[in-house]
């Protein structure tokens, strides 16, 4: 970050507002930035990611679309190829299936296919995550799916400060950036109150680098590497564990592509134990990649086999008791850390 923000130090806003603010700042700075998606206009985005932008920039730059994700994401690509900088919203990441061709086989691949001659400076932002009984087509995270496919950066902020800085970085990036926001970190008035979803955000523009993890909490006994809402869960677990004299280091990966493998290794070399926590499906996803990274780079430092907590390879069920059973939470993290320490 580049700004000094002494006078704004007390400015606390939600993650949703921080995102919208980041977009708004870039729209003021660069007339080629525009927003497009379902209900991003007067409504302000179903999850508030475009709050107040319609009022300031009007229907020409904050554009409601038909329910044609292939159509408007493809159009975003076309506009980006011509030098504009679209910020396109896919309302829920779960809807990726109707437009994955444009995302993966087009947006993410054009730069490579063109031998570097064509750039696609586009942000695709989308909501993810469960925990409020929205059932299996509205509660997935799926970031592992995208991170597996080369050509797009995958950014997943966990807090207001990062949300704004990463949004500005994403818009300024000359590459396609998939920006996934978990509904649970947004600070929405109509979801369970999450105190960590409101925080200090400087008013001025600033960037947070894409591809750098953050140590959300320093610790010495176990590294808990995670992302998004599970960072909050891990921090809650850390508070719990501290009472028992266990010190965990919480690593907020912040982006999956690029993945900050050095940060993972640094932390594991320090703590010698690794627990990976994810709200995506367990197999063939983030947990396996992070563990493999640790094994490849810090095998001899590991005092115990790395462990993981994720959705146990089932779709997200509707009923609260069922859903809570499959979601990661602080209790599971506490238990996971303890069993790592006794392993």
């Amino acid at each position, binding site marked *: 970050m580049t700004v000094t923000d002494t006078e704004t130090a007390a400015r606390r806003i939600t993650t949703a507002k921080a995102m919208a603010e980041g977009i708004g700042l870039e729209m003021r700075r660069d007339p080629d930035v525009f927003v497009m998606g379902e209900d991003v206009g007067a409504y302000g985005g179903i999850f508030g990611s475009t709050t107040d932008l319609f009022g300031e920039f009007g229907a020409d730059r904050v554009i409601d679309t038909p329910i044609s994700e292939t159509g408007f994401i493809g159009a975003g690509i076309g506009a980006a190829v011509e030098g504009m900088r679209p910020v396109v919203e896919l309302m829920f990441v779960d809807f990726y299936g109707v437009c994955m061709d444009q995302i993966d086989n087009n947006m993410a691949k054009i730069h490579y296919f063109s031998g570097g001659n064509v750039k696609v400076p586009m942000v695709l932002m989308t909501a993810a995550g469960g925990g409020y009984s929205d059932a299996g087509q509205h509660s997935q995270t799926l970031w592992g799916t995208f991170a597996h496919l080369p050509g797009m950066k995958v950014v997943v902020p966990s807090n207001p400060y990062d949300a704004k800085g990463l949004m500005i970085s994403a818009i300024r990036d000359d590459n396609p950036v998939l920006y996934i926001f978990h509904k649970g970190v947004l600070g929405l008035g109509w979801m369970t109150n999450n105190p960590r979803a409101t925080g200090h955000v400087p008013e001025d523009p600033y960037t947070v680098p894409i591809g750098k993890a953050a140590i959300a909490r320093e610790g010495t006994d176990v590294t808990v590497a995670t992302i998004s809402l599970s960072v909050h869960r891990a921090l809650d677990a850390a508070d719990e564990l501290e009472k028992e004299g266990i010190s965990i280091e919480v690593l907020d990966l912040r982006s999956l592509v690029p993945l900050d493998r050095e940060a993972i290794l640094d932390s594991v070399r320090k703590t010698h134990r690794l627990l990976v926590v994810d709200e995506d499906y367990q197999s063939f996803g983030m947990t396996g990649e992070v563990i493999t990274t640790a094994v490849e780079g810090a095998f001899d430092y590991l005092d115990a086999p790395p462990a993981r907590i994720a959705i146990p390879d*089932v779709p997200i069920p*509707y009923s609260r008791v*069922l859903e809570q059973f499959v979601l990661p939470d602080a209790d599971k993290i506490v238990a996971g850390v303890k069993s790592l320490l006794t392993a």
Partner: protein
Amino acid sequence: MNQFNRLDSYKEMVRIRQYESRILQEYHADKQPAWDIGAGLIPGEMHLAAGQEPAAVGVCAHLKKGDAITAPHRPHHFALAHGVDMKAMTAEIYGRDSGLCRGKGGHMHLFDPENHFSCSGIIAQGYPVACGQAFAFKRRSTDNVAVAVAGEGAANQGAFHEALNLAALWSLPVIFVIEDNDWAISVPKSHSTATASNADRAAGYGIPGVRVENNDVEAIFEAAGAAVDRARAGEGPSLIEIHTLRLWGHFEGDAQAYRGAELETVDERDPIPRYAKSLVDLGELTEDQIVTIAAAADAEVDAAIQFAVSSPEPKPQDALLHVFA
């Protein structure tokens, strides 16, 4: 074509309305003090179909055992009109083990194989599925039909196009129903397509397309009858766009600020009092009956909610079941 029964149709519309009204009430009842979408006995998104009863009742009046429906995220009216068990459906909405789907699906994923009913949360996802059901019906030489329902917003999704083309090409017994309630969440139809009537799109597939105005259950019944007859006779699919009304928000919690002045006229366009009045004028319904019909519906809804509330929750670890058969 079936004979239209005014009183039965009225009763069914009231039955649906009482259901939706009661769900509305129960849904909001325990989300206080800070309104929290995930809290309460009925958590999650809730898309209610009040105002759209004529579509479900007019169409389903033609359906019989073995006919299929694929409905969208706003499914209750079609589910009830098609005979899905109110108790099991309600228990599902309450996330109970006795629910249609043992609590795994919820209100956007009601699967009732007995009645060949299903719905889903992805716009237009059911359109191609209905083609496959119709394909199976045709292959097995039944005269069953499949009805694919979605909103006017869904008509701009690629799946709509592919399904219509496929059904027309293979002459499948499908009735594509578009419920045009003017809105796709906050986006009015005029901002999502340049065509006033999606019925005009039917010609591009070589199939009949009609638009029914005025949310009129009798006109819907007529149009649906022609389409169902055609499908049963092996003559292929049809498209029906029904101009209907979203009486409430897109989902519960939607403040509908975007709706502006139009919102003020909503109540006067409510199809149920209007239909009641016309039946009273025709002498086919009395004020007394209006009361008793509503009371009967309420009683059924009460029983369903009672069933749901008193049913046990699923066992948490059952979340691990049913990934594979």
